[in-house]
């Protein structure tokens, strides 16, 4: 059984813990063992925190990587933001000894072990596609309900593609393939692949601008007949879920892929934590 350090981040465990319980159950069902990364912090967020001070951003991220290093595992995340920060910092530190030296000096002064440069960071969609396999997901899916889904990749799962090299950043398919294996139809829609609007500190600083971007995406999803939005990032999830409540229109339920798989695998519905969703989920 493959074993990974489960990186929780902030929004999932604190605002949508149903994504966490679903992920734990779904991964167990698929034979992926998740172990907690005791004492991990915020990744820190790649848009907003990296904007303030890149040395601080990198050092806090490196401390999180050291936790996985001590456990002797690679990191698994279900959040595009955590993935971007941890992947990018690991990529920089694993390939650039000078930068690693600089960050290790800060870690040492803070009482943190040296980062050796060997930890890999995985996004769960990529792990499901490449390691677990679409067929294994299909085999577990009992009830797909045949609904139409707007699949939202978000930005930081695949991009920047020059270092992530996961799928075509403009015309990706791996997330859609998993959603379809769960018995749901992924519908094409205009400008699919566009940012939800929340990233880069925009949601915090200018929420009205963020919401305009969200609204345009929602309009395109609705026009395509989407009955559910499926995301692979708690921050996009929050933006679509809370955004629709604010806009007082659309009413398209939002599910994180872990919740969708939980539903398809026939998990106890109470474990999905859907009651905290601001856009009602009647599926």
């Amino acid at each position, binding site marked *: 059984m493959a074993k990974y350090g489960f990186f929780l981040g902030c929004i999932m465990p604190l605002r949508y813990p149903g994504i966490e319980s679903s992920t734990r159950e779904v991964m167990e069902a698929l034979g992926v063992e998740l172990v907690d990364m005791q004492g991990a912090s915020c990744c*820190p967020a790649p848009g907003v925190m990296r904007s*303030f001070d890149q040395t601080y951003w990198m050092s806090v991220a490196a401390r999180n990587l050291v936790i996985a290093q001590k456990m002797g595992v690679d990191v698994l995340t279900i959040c595009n933001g955590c993935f971007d920060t941890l992947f990018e910092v690991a990529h920089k530190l694993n390939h650039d000894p000078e930068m690693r030296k600089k960050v290790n000096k800060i870690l040492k002064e803070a009482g943190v072990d040296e980062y050796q440069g060997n930890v890999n960071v995985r996004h769960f969609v990529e792990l499901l596609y490449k390691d677990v396999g679409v067929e294994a997901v299909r085999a577990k899916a009992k009830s797909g309900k045949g609904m139409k889904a707007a699949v939202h990749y978000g930005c930081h799962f695949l991009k*920047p593609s020059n270092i992530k090299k996961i799928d075509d950043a403009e015309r990706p398919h791996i997330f859609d393939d998993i959603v379809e294996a769960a018995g749901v139809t992924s519908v094409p829609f205009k400008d699919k692949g566009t940012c939800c609007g929340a990233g880069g500190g*925009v949601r915090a600083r200018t929420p009205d601008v963020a919401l305009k971007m969200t609204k345009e995406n929602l309009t395109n999803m609705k026009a395509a007949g989407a009955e559910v939005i499926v995301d692979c990032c708690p921050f996009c999830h929050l933006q679509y879920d809370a955004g629709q409540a604010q806009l007082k229109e659309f009413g398209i339920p939002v599910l994180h892929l872990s919740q969708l798989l939980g539903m398809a695998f026939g998990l106890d519905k109470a474990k999905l934590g859907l009651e905290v969703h601001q856009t009602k989920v009647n599926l």
Partner: protein
Amino acid sequence: MAEAKEPNPEFTRKVVEAGGKTVNLCFQCGTCTGSCPSGRQTAFRVRKLVRRAQLGFEEDVLPSDDLWLCTTCFTCYERCPRGVEIVDVIMALRNMAVRKGYMAEPHRKVAELISKTGHLVSLRDEDKALRGRLGLQNTPPTVFSDPKALEQVKKIGEICGFDKLIAGGK
């Protein structure tokens, strides 16, 4: 007659050093602006921002609100025919802006939260209760339940001068 501003190569050099090392490769085609989801909704124009950084127009760039309208979606970065790592350029400019004291209040609050608690989101009683109902540990097994780990995160903030930075910039 409009007065032409003098370029300031010193500022451009600083942008390169701060991480925007590809800024000078831009030839102003505008693929970035045409791809920008934020620019569709606002007057933010990535191409202009990059040009101003190239010319070293510090006063047009660092205090500007436009600098903060990028969601870091990487679409322009992916499509740039010159390989300008635009998000890296924007990050370098934002770091420089924050050092000059340009930081919006909502961002200061977010930064304070991580500096004090190690997380960007708070842990409320209702979160603990819901976690319990879902069969999860009430308090997540993160810095929230590990004071020693939180001390390390705080110490990193101290060493990097992060606390001072968010307290007032400059």
